[in-house]
């Protein structure tokens, strides 16, 4: 499972500890999630998505996310 937790966290300026406290887990668990060393439960995935105010598919995916640069380029190329 792939995720964009680190990206969302960096964009919102949220520390691992703040996110961990908000979703009710140990702060180290967020680190393991970001590194892909732990797969979250559905409940935790939904809590993280709710914390960032987005759909869960925007943060978690079964396939690798495309790099931000290529996503921006794609948006820029659209008419």
């Amino acid at each position, binding site marked *: 499972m792939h995720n964009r937790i680190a990206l969302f966290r960096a964009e919102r300026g949220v*520390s691992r500890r703040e996110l961990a406290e908000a979703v*009710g*887990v*140990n*702060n*180290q*668990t967020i*680190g393991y999630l970001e590194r892909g060393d732990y797969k*979250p439960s559905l409940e935790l995935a939904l*809590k993280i998505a709710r914390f960032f105010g987005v759909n869960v598919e925007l943060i978690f995916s079964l396939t690798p996310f495309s790099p931000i640069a290529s996503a921006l380029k794609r948006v820029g190329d659209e008419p």
Partner: protein
Amino acid sequence: MKTTMKWLPLMVMALAASGLISSFILTSETMGLSLVVAGVAVALSALIRVKGPLRQPTLDEPPDEREQSWSNRANLYAFGTVALIAMAGTMGFAGWMMFAGASGYGAPFQMGVSLFAFGMVLFVMFMLLPTLFASWSMPDIIEDESEPDGGLRFVRPRRR
């Protein structure tokens, strides 16, 4: 911060095993030394378990889902291994008793001490195998650059 312990549990298990082995070798006058050695291993195993990578849950600080998941896997591995060794040891001691009954080799006192030392070895393994499993299989913790202490201090999760 909980530390990983990759070699210390192995050394303490070896210490406990040496206590058991010495109970077969030493004479009845010095056999108590075997129990002292195994007893030291028991005390060390309790200390290592507390200091190991698996945080001991309390009512105030319950484990989160990742800690619970690792704990379950580590304990399952440990229970299976301890159960296998206990079965093998039980059969071994039963065989020794049958052999002793037929040949007269092995005093009941020596058997009792060896059995006690074997029980201590099982206890040490029960305490240390989860720590050993977690130490070897858990990925290393990475520091959180956005926190002054690296984000390595345990923070009690909020109950929801």
